[in-house]
């Protein structure tokens, strides 16, 4: 199955996939697809998100996605007032992030590059210890 095409279809017309277009429904759908592939579908997603955010090594991908949406779209934590966002927008941004990740991963050596950047990032952290990679 081509998951990028599936997710693009879900993103544009969620109702045709039994979803109400809310963020939580989108997360549940993606989680179901991931479990159906024994976790292979989202391999590297969490690591890719951590490097993109530059933080959140302890977070699940769902927590990371929300933090990235807040940082890149909503403006939370910045001096400016938060921009308005709706659940439908978060649904859209979720699938946008996932598509960017899948695009990066399917490139030549994509998975190696994703993990390589993650390990580089890890090694820059003050709390990093070599045994974390053993």
């Amino acid at each position: 199955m081509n998951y990028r095409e599936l997710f693009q279809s879900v993103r544009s017309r969620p109702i045709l996939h039994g979803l109400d277009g809310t963020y939580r429904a989108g997360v549940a759908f993606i989680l179901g697809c991931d479990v159906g592939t024994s976790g292979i579908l989202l391999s590297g997603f969490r690591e890719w998100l951590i490097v993109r955010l530059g933080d959140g090594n302890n977070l699940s991908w769902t927590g990371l996605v929300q933090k990235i949406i807040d940082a890149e779209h909503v403006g939370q934590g910045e001096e400016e007032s938060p921009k308005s966002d709706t659940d439908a927008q978060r649904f859209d941004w979720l699938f946008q992030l996932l598509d960017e990740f899948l695009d990066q991963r399917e490139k030549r050596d994509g998975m190696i590059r994703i993990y390589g950047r993650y390990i580089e990032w890890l090694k820059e952290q003050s709390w990093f210890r070599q045994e974390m990679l053993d």
Partner: protein
Amino acid sequence: MATDHTSGEDPLQTSHREGANGAAEKADERNSADSSFGDENTQGAEQTTEADKVGFIPGPTPAEFQEIVHQYDDLPNDQLDGGYPHDVNLRVGSETDPGDLGSDWIPRSVSEISRSTKCEQVARQIQEQIGGEVHRIESPPFVKNLGIYRDQPTEWSFHDVVIRNGRVYDGFTERTGLPTDEYKSLWTSMYPNEFQF
């Protein structure tokens, strides 16, 4: 994964320990002289009796602590290996005397739990202060996060804590941590056997 900064013998550690013994002896003398201890010198004899019951090892006064600290001023940071506080038994004693992060320790609010980050850094800082081992609480297979902690939903894939003398410490515990079983009970979505401790 677990690391222990309290074990192992090396010349630097031995040197620290001499300082620790000296500090403990001084504190003992002070304890018997004025019936007080640690940061609570002004609280009177009754509190000392209570402290004796739970077996506290008296810590040095702030001035004595600074003196101990300055013994290591010339050492490069990479030789301190976790810092001096736990080596000098500042507030650390027997099993009935839990490691104490001190009066400056302020636990983070539970309202920050959900998407808080940097538990790895907090665990390292705690370990540097009181010793012990860093343990990682990991989500079970096919589960996206650790569920509920302290009645708050988490978005954590894992959580690093410090375990010392049967007590658990993280950024949300009080200064003396919590007994292991009590700590586990705060994770209402996890089974006790899913912890690696």
